[in-house]
C-alpha cells in the first residue's frame, strides 16, 4: 500500500473518519475509493458509500480478488442495513468463496453472517437456520461474533425456543463487551428486551393475564389445548392444526375455548362467526355444517359436542383449554398477529387467513406500513409483507476492512 492509503487506513481504524477522508478525498484509485466508501458508510451516507464501494470493486485489478471481495461484502452489508433487498445475494456468496479460498476466514464468516441476516430479513427462517448451523463462528472477532449470536437469538425467539435464545443473547453480550463497543452492547440489551416483556395474553376459564415468551413456550409444551390466536393454530400435545386459511372455523373454536368448560349458545356462535345479528334457520344449518368441519379438523385433539343451547369443546387428552391472544386486538392487530411468525406473507394469503377482502387487507397493510409496523419486500405479484425484525441483529455497520493488508 502507498503512504497516504496507509495513513488513511490508520486514521479510519482509530475512529478518525474525517481524517481518513481528508487524506484520500481527491484520489480515485481503487484503494482510495474503497476507503472513501467505508468512511462514508461510517458517516451514514449509505448511498454515496455504496456507489464508492461499487467503483472500488471495479477498479481493483485482476490480482486483487480479496480486496474486491471485501468491497462486495461491505456493499452487501450496507444494502442490508438500508433494507435494499434488490441487492444480489449471489454476488455476496461469490465474494464469500473468494475470501475463503484466499484464507480470509474472518471476512468469509462475516459474509456468511450477512447472508443469514438477509434470509431472516426476508422471512426465510428455515434457510436462515440451516445456513446458521453450517457457519463456523470461531474465526469471528468479538464484534462480528456478537452480531452472529444476535441473529441466532432472533431465530430462536421466532422459533419460541427461549432457553436457546437466552443462551445466544448471553454469548452476544459477552462478545459485545469483549469488543468494547458500547453501541453494540446496547443493541444486545435491546434485543434481549423481547424476552422480558409480555408477548401475548392468556385467556382461560374467564380470566386473562399477560404471558412472557418463555411462558408461551411452556404453555405449548404443557398439557393444555391451546387455541393460538396469534398464529391461528390449535395446538395440543405436540400436534398442531393450522386454521389460518379457515377463519370461520378458527372463530368458532376460539369462542368455544374462551367459554370452556361451559358451552356457547348457537346464537352467540352465529353472531361471532357469521356476523349475523339474528340466527335464522339458514344460519343454524350453516353452523351445523361448520361445526362438522371443525370436528373433522380437530379430530384426535378435541371433541365438539352439541349441548341443549349450543356447543361445547372437550379436549381429548389435555387437562386444560386456553386461548393465546395477541396483546392488542383489532382489525389491524389480526394482520400483525399473522406476521408475528417472522415469515413473509403475500397480501392474498393474508386475506385468505383473515377471511377479509383483499382490499381490506391492503388498506390495513398500507396503514400499518405508514406506522412502520410492517414492511413490504418485492414488487407487484412478488410483493411480500413482514413484521419488522425484532431487533435481532445490529443496525450498526461492522464493515470489513476494505484492503487486504488490513
Amino acid at each position, binding site marked *: 500500500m*502507498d503512504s*497516504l492509503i496507509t495513513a488513511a487506513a490508520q486514521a479510519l481504524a482509530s475512529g478518525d473518519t474525517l481524517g481518513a477522508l481528508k487524506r484520500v478525498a481527491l484520489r480515485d*484509485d481503487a484503494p482510495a475509493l474503497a476507503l472513501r466508501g467505508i468512511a462514508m458508510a461510517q458517516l451514514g451516507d449509505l448511498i454515496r458509500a455504496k456507489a464508492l464501494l461499487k467503483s472500488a470493486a471495479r477498479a481493483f485489478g485482476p490480482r486483487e480478488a480479496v480486496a474486491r471481495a471485501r468491497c462486495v461484502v461491505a456493499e452487501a452489508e450496507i444494502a442490508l442495513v438500508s433494507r435494499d433487498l434488490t441487492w444480489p445475494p449471489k454476488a455476496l456468496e461469490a465474494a464469500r468463496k473468494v475470501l475463503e479460498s484466499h484464507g480470509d476466514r474472518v471476512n468469509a464468516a462475516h459474509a456468511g453472517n450477512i447472508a443469514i441476516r438477509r434470509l431472516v430479513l426476508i422471512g426465510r427462517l428455515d434457510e436462515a437456520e440451516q445456513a446458521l448451523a453450517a457457519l463456523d463462528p470461531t474465526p469471528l472477532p468479538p464484534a462480528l461474533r456478537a452480531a452472529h449470536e444476535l441473529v441466532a437469538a432472533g431465530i430462536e425467539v421466532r422459533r419460541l425456543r427461549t432457553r436457546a435464545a437466552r443462551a445466544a443473547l448471553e454469548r452476544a453480550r459477552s462478545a459485545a463487551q469483549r469488543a468494547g463497543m458500547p453501541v453494540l452492547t446496547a443493541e444486545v440489551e435491546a434485543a434481549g428486551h423481547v424476552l422480558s416483556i409480555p408477548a401475548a395474553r392468556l385467556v382461560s376459564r374467564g380470566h386473562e393475564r399477560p404471558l412472557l415468551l418463555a411462558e408461551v413456550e411452556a404453555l405449548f409444551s404443557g398439557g393444555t389445548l391451546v387455541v393460538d390466536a396469534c398464529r391461528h393454530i390449535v395446538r395440543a400435545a405436540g400436534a398442531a392444526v393450522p386454521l389460518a386459511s379457515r377463519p370461520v372455523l378458527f372463530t368458532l373454536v376460539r369462542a368455544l375455548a374462551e367459554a370452556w368448560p361451559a358451552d356457547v349458545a348457537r346464537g352467540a356462535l352465529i353472531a361471532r362467526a357469521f356476523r349475523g345479528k339474528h340466527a335464522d334457520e339458514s344460519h343454524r344449518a350453516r353452523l351445523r355444517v361448520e361445526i362438522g368441519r371443525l370436528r373433522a379438523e380437530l379430530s384426535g385433539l378435541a371433541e365438539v359436542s352439541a349441548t341443549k343451547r349450543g356447543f361445547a369443546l372437550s379436549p381429548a387428552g389435555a387437562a386444560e383449554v386456553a386461548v393465546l391472544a395477541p396483546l392488542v386486538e383489532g382489525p389491524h392487530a389480526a394482520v400483525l398477529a399473522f406476521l408475528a411468525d417472522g415469515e413473509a406473507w403475500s397480501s392474498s394469503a393474508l386475506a385468505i387467513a383473515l377471511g377479509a377482502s383483499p382490499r381490506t387487507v391492503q388498506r390495513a397493510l398500507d396503514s400499518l406500513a405508514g406506522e412502520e409496523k410492517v414492511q413490504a419486500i418485492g414488487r407487484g405479484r412478488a410483493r411480500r409483507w413482514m413484521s419488522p425484525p425484532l431487533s435481532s441483529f445490529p443496525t450498526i455497520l461492522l464493515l470489513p476492512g476494505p484492503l487486504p493488508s488490513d
Partner: protein
Amino acid sequence: MKTSTATILREYGPFPDAERVHGVTFDGRHVWFASGDRLNALDPDSGEVMRFIEVASHAGTAFDGEFLYQIAEDVIHKIDPKTGQILSTIPAPGNGGDSGLAWAEGTLWVGQHRGRRIHQIDPDTGEILRTIESNRVVTGVTWVDGQLWHGTWEGDDSDIRRIDPQTGEVLERLDMPEGTGVSGLESDGAACFFCGGGNSGKIRAVRRPG
C-alpha cells in the same frame, strides 16, 4: 531474465505495538522498520526491537549513512536517528501514492505504488531528477552493488526483482512463497535482503542471489 524462488533465511516478528511493516532500512547495525506511527530499530542478531522513534511512518524508509528518511502521508521526513528529531521535510514525488524508499549515489529513490514507477529525487528539494517505469506496483526499493531491486505485491503475487535502471527492463526475479508479500525492501549490503511483510507484521531475511 533469471527467475527463482526466494529463499527465506530468517523471520522476525510480529512485534508488539508494531502490527504492520510499511518500510525497512538498515544502518549497518539495526534494521529500522516503519510501523505506522513509529520507527523501530531491530537487532537482526537477537531479533529484539532495541528502541523506537515516535514518528509518522506510512511507507518507505531509507538511511544515508547518518540520517533516516521516512515517507509520511505525502512528504518525506529527514530524521536524526540519535534524537528522533525531524530535521527537514520535502514533498514526496507521488503525492502520497509513494511506497518504497532507498538511498544511493547521493540521491533518494522513491517507488510510486500504483504509478508503477521509481523516481530519483534530490534529497534536499524533492525535485524529480529521473523516472524509471516498471510494469508492476512498487512496494519497496533498494540499491546494492550497483543493482536496483524493487519489491512488488499484488493480491497473492509478490516478488523481488532487479531492473535495469536505465530501461526498467526486468533482469532477475525472486518469487516470494505463497502467502508472503513484500512491503519495504532493503539489502544489508551483502548477501541478504530485509523484506517488510505488510500486515503479517513480520520482517523476512531473504537470500540475495549471486
